[in-house]
């Protein structure tokens, strides 16, 4: 990462943290008084950011499964990063929705007294399983590195010992090899378990909305599919952005291959997503009659039409498509395209959550009783954005800590082997028994990564 980008990120984080302090303080003292949503638009920005972050998580996780389960070689280097990104964004999603609860300290009730008729209860249970699964995958992926670091001593050794759960890495080459193979097997199984889980919970988030018969706009069988595609697009784009920004270990050629692969993947997913969206928009609008026409007209040409045209279609589809089609080779272009798709996906989420709630179920209800909470309009307040800033700042901080403390970018773990194992079993042994010198040479040619990073996670063998 170059110095300029780094300074910008730090500056952004400091601003976000300052805004976050205000948001969290206000949330703690005054509750949700300054939030602009109410009883007729009961779900606002925080529900939108929740489905946005959960989408990023599911997308990143499904991409990690491509490494561990399907052994997609081109993605091998992002396995750890994808898993860690999935964990962090899941945390951000849960933080968002936790802020949204009227009784935050009762959230545990979903585990202690669940009602399994409710899609929301299912979600929470599935997230819990998913979170444990990510932790387990990360542990198997990193355990050798963590144990090595714990053994190496130093100030952080106790932390690594804790993270490795006291596990010690065999020193004997053959045992080490067997240990790697075991990790691979476990990761493949966990990843395979994770795929239906990720599909279930993110399709389930779509179903959480789609099962509500009260709102025809949400009540669509396409919704779960749309959510899954959206997850893959936005999660893939986030990884593309991260990989372009941070590199992912390996030679320049390998990194470029990875970027091009991810860029193509995002491109295809983006096009597929647009096709689905076209179906969603064009079918209710085609003849200009029906209950959803007014709502779609409002989304497209109403007050907040710019959310669709500028943020979603312009910055989230057209510009990234152009960048991905023309500039796959350029690290800047792929990074920017990834960033644009990943961030502007919030516009898609907002357009899913907010507009259908602005239509009264009974005409005249808005005028029947006057109160700021009984309006069929909604624009997030500054306070709400401040809480989102807190979620983002927390996510960035955890991500930064992860990058500094965990070996997420250098492909020393078994994921490299994983890809090779599946691509051709015999090669796997050869590849994993590669001499240390070869590995060092390969690492040495990697892009210089974070100069401030502690030596343990420096890509260079120095």
């Amino acid at each position, binding site marked *: 990462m170059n110095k300029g980008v780094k300074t910008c990120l730090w500056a952004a984080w400091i601003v976000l943290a300052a805004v976050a302090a205000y948001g969290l303080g206000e949330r703690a003292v005054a*509750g*949700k*008084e300054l*939030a602009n949503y*109410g*009883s*007729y638009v*009961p*779900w606002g920005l925080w529900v939108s950011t929740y489905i946005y972050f959960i989408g990023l998580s599911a997308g990143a996780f499904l991409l990690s499964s491509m490494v561990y389960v399907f052994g997609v070689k081109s993605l091998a280097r992002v396995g750890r990063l994808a898993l860690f990104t999935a964990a962090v964004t899941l945390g951000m999603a849960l933080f968002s929705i936790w802020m*949204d*609860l*009227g*009784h935050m300290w*009762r*959230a545990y*009730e*979903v585990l202690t*007294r*669940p*009602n399994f*008729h*409710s*899609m*929301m*209860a299912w979600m*929470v249970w599935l997230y819990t399983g998913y979170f444990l699964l990510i932790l387990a995958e990360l542990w198997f992926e990193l355990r050798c590195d963590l144990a090595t670091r714990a053994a190496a001593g130093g100030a952080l050794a106790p932390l690594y010992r804790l993270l490795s759960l006291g596990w010690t890495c065999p020193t004997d080459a053959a045992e080490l090899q067997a240990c790697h193979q075991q990790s691979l097997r476990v990761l493949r199984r966990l990843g395979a378990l994770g795929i239906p889980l990720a599909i279930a919970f993110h399709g389930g988030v779509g179903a*959480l909305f789609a*099962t*509500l*018969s*009260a*709102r025809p706009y949400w009540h669509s069988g396409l919704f779960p599919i749309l959510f899954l595609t959206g997850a893959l697009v936005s999660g893939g784009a986030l990884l593309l952005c991260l990989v372009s920004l941070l590199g992912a270990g390996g030679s320049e050629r390998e990194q470029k291959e990875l970027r091009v692969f991810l860029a193509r993947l995002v491109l295809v997913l983006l096009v597929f997503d647009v096709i689905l969206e076209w179906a969603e928009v064009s079918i209710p609008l085609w003849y200009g009659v029906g209950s959803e026409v007014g709502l779609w007209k409002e989304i497209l040409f109403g007050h907040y039409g710019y959310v669709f045209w500028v943020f979603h279609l312009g910055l989230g589809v057209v510009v990234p498509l152009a960048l991905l089609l023309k500039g796959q080779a350029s690290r800047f272009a792929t990074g920017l395209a990834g960033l644009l798709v990943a961030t502007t996906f919030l516009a898609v989420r907002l357009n899913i959550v907010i507009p259908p*709630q602005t239509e*009264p*179920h*009974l*005409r*005249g*209800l808005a*005028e*029947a*009783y006057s*109160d*700021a*909470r*009984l309006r069929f309009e909604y624009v997030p307040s500054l306070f709400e954005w401040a809480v989102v800033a807190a979620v983002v700042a927390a996510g960035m901080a955890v991500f930064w800590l992860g990058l500094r403390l965990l070996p997420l970018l250098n492909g020393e773990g078994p994921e490299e082997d994983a890809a090779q194992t599946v691509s051709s079993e015999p090669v796997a042994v050869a590849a994993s028994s590669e001499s240390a010198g070869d590995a060092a040479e390969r690492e040495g040619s990697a892009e210089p990564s974070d100069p401030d990073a502690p030596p343990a996670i420096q890509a260079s063998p120095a």
Partner: protein
Amino acid sequence: MEQAGASLGKPRDTKGGRATRRELFARALAAAGGLSALALTREGLAKEPAILDRPDDWAPGNALERMRRDLERALAKPMEKRKWVMVIDLEKCIGCKACTVSCVAENNLPPGVVYRPVVEEERGEFPHVRKRFIPRPCMHCDNPPCTPVCPVGATWKRPDGIVAVDYDACIGCRYCLSACPYNARTADFGEFYTEGLAEGSEAFAGPRASGYETRPSFEYGKEWRRTPGSHASPMGNARKCQFCLHRIENHLLPACVTTCLGGATYFGDFNDPESLVHELVGSSRMMRLKEELGTEPSVFYLA
């Protein structure tokens, strides 16, 4: 000419014309008086009891009396044998919103929480315009879309038909608000009418002095106190009309029924064929809101 005049009748003088109209008026009055006098005789009552049992012929006070008797009969039965329903006669509703206000007072509702708004509907074009007023309590749907969505099972349909919320369990996710097709649930955001007003502020001196906002409400038979600065239930919860369950169980009709100026709101046990509501639901004017959704509301309208 005279003959012709006689055969054609005398040309009417103004005086004679006036006399005729006065006569007609007097006859009409006498006839009406006679009819009503007849109707009020004991024989009249004995002959046509069914007609007099029609709520239209009852003064609102009498309908209340009958509903009270219905209530007593229902309360004498086990809870699962009752089915509470409400009937609202839209022809009688005058749009005064007394029910809305009495409900706010009964349940000590804070800003932004309302259980029974009265929706106004304008029909026709000038000069042929009519207004219709549609009070909208919770429909206490027999097939409620709001209960299965609750992640913690904090809201459910009781055997007596009332859709209840357990304020102590509700986590305030507002999924049920999103699921209700009548916008009948509101969330308590923990606000107060008198909050932020300078001490002694004229406009709110009354409510503050009387402690209106901090007085307890007795929904679901428990005592709920809202205190500024605390986030205790019912603050942070989903709230809705509960047919004044706490009143019913104390042998009182719901607040909106007893305060309805137009005598337009009826309440009772639908499982009792003798009840007034049972009779009214059988009307050809009966309709329910959004019947097509299959929610099977327990609130019936006479349109």
